C-alpha cells in the first residue's frame, strides 16, 4: 500500500479503466488488501476535480462523520476511534448492510487507505487520493474501491436495479462531495421538502 494503483499497466491510464480483467486481478492482488477470500472482486475508480485546496478537502473527508452528508446510501457512520469507524449502509429491499472499517495507511493532505474488518456484510477496501490539479484548478480527488458484491453476480444485478451499484454510486457521491465543497450545498431539482423526500428530481 502507499503506491498508486496504476503501476503494473502498460499504458498510463488508471487501472480501473483497463479492459483486461486479468491485469486488474494481478494488480489488486498485490496492491490492495483483498477483502475476504472471494474471486468476485469489483474494482471501482472515479475521479473528480474540485475547485478547493487539497488540505481543506482532506480534512473534511478525514472526519468520517461528515461522509454521510453526501454519501446517499450511507445511513450512519459511527466514529469508533481515530482509525476505526462503523458503517451502516442501505441495501436493496429496505435492508441495511454493516461493517467496521479501519484506516490501513494515510498521509496527511494526500491519501487515506482503508479496509473492512472481519465479519463485514460487504467486505471492501479502498483509498481516496487528493492531488493538486494542474493550472491552479484545485484538487483532483480519486476514489478507488475494491469490494465483494453481496451474493455474487445476482447481488450485483439486484444492486444495479436499485441504482446502488458502487460504480454509479461512487460517481454520484463524488459529485455531491464536489457540490458541497464548491457551493456549500448539494443541488436538488425538487420543488419542496415533500418532493425532495420522495426523491423526485
Amino acid at each position, binding site marked *: 500500500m502507499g503506491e498508486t494503483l496504476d503501476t503494473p499497466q502498460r499504458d498510463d491510464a488508471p487501472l480501473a479503466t483497463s479492459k483486461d480483467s486479468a491485469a486488474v486481478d494481478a494488480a489488486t492482488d498485490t496492491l490492495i488488501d483483498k477483502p475476504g477470500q472471494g474471486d468476485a472482486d469489483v474494482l471501482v475508480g472515479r475521479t473528480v476535480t474540485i475547485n478547493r485546496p487539497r488540505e481543506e478537502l482532506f480534512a473534511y473527508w478525514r472526519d468520517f462523520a461528515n461522509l454521510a452528508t453526501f454519501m446517499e446510501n450511507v445511513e450512519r457512520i459511527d466514529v469508533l476511534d481515530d482509525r476505526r469507524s462503523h458503517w451502516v449502509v442501505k441495501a436493496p429491499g429496505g435492508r441495511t448492510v454493516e461493517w467496521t472499517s479501519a484506516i490501513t495507511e494515510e498521509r496527511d493532505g494526500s491519501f487515506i487507505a482503508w479496509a473492512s474488518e472481519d465479519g463485514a456484510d460487504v467486505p471492501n477496501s479502498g483509498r481516496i487520493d487528493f492531488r493538486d490539479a494542474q493550472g491552479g484548478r484545485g484538487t483532483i480527488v480519486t476514489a478507488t474501491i475494491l469490494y465483494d458484491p453481496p451474493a455474487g453476480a445476482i447481488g450485483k444485478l439486484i444492486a444495479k436495479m436499485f441504482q446502488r451499484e458502487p460504480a*454509479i454510486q461512487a460517481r454520484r457521491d463524488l459529485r455531491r462531495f464536489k457540490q458541497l465543497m464548491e457551493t456549500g450545498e448539494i443541488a436538488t431539482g425538487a*420543488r419542496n421538502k415533500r418532493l425532495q423526500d420522495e426523491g423526485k428530481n
Partner: protein
Amino acid sequence: MRALAWHGKHDVRVDTVDDPEILNPRDAIIKVTSTAICGSDLHLYDGYIPTMMKGDILGHEFMGEVVEVGPKSTLKMGQRVVVPFTIACGSCYHCGKHQYSACDNGLPADNQDIAQELYGQPMSGLFGYSHMTGGYSGGQAEYVRIPFSDVGPLVIPEGIEDEKVLFLSDILPTGWMAAENAQIEPGDTVAVWGCGPVGLFAVQSAFLMGAERVIAIDHFPRRLELAKKFGAETINFEETRTYEALMEMTGGIGPDAVIDAVGLEAHGFFVDNVIDQIKASTFLGTDRIHSIRQAIHACRKGGRVSMPAVYGGFVDKFPLGAFMEKGLTLKTGQTHVQHYMPALLNAILEGKIDTTFLISHTLPLEDAPKGYKMFHDNQNEVTKVVLKPGLALAAE
C-alpha cells in the same frame, strides 16, 4: 399554487400543485409577475425532448418579486428580479470562466448521469426543461424556487416595466451570444436562418457589433417584416432558392458568417428534412438539421458558423466535407446568460436595444394551454406569448 404542467405531447394544463419551498441556503422564492413561452418550449410540447415526466412544470423565461430568501441568498424581500434560465453555481471552474451553461454543479448529482452518458460530461441545470437538465420546476407558475439566488437573478431598477427586461432571461442573451459567436468583423455580411425571437435579436446584435449587412431567412412574412424593420435584407425560402440568392447577394462569395437560429424542428419540405423526420420518428436519428446544412453550404471560405439553435442528439448527413475543405469555424452552446445580463440590461436602459416589439400576445397564466396552441399553430402572427399569473381571465 397554479402552474402550467406537461402531461404529454400537445397536452399541457394549468394544475393546482403544492408550493415551492426553500431547500438550500442559497435559495430564494419568487412570485412570478411575467413569464413567456419560448420557441424551445415547443420542442417539449411536440414531444421531442426525452426525460419528461407527467406533471413537470414548464417555463424558463420568467421574472418576479422576491418573497422568501434562504440564509445565504443575497436578495432582499420585495426586489424585482429577472431569472437566467441556466442554473449555475458561480463557484466552479467553468463559472469562474463565465461559462455558466457549463456549470459543474447546477445539475443534481443523480440527474448528471443521463447527460454524462449522452454528451460525455453533464451541463448546467435548466428551469422547466426535462429531467436531463435537473427536473427543476419552471417559471410558468405563480411561484418558483430559485437555486443559487446569490449569483443568478438580476435585480431590476424600479420603474422599468416587465416587458422591457423579461427577455434578459434567455432569448436576448441567446441572440447576442449568437452574434458574438459569429465573430463579426467590420464590413461583414451575416446571414441568419430563422426569424424567431433569437434570430431577430441576433439581427439587432449583429448590426450593433459592426455587421454591414444582415440577411434574414424565414418563411413567415410577418417575421421577415420584423427583421426588415431592424435593417436586414430578407429571403423567403418558400419563394426563393436560398443558396443561390445568398451567393448572388454577396457577389458570389457567400456570407462571412452564418447563424442557425432554427434548430431541431426545421420547417419546410426539403428532401433531407423529410428523411430526417422519418428517422426522428423511427429513432434512427434524432434531430432535423436542414438549416445548419444549408448554412454551412452557403458560408464563405474561412467563414464562421454560429449555432444558437437547440440540438439534442445525433445527426447524419452533416456536411463535414464542406466544413473541413472550406476551413470553417463553428461556435455554439447553451447561453451563458449570467455573463451577458448586466451589460444587456444597460443596453436596454440606454435605449440601444428594444425587446417589446416581439410581444404579440399577453394572456393570463390560466390561458397558458391556449397560448401554447396559438404559438404552435400560427408562428406567423404569434411571435411571442407572455403569461401573467396576476391577470384576470378575459370574459369569453
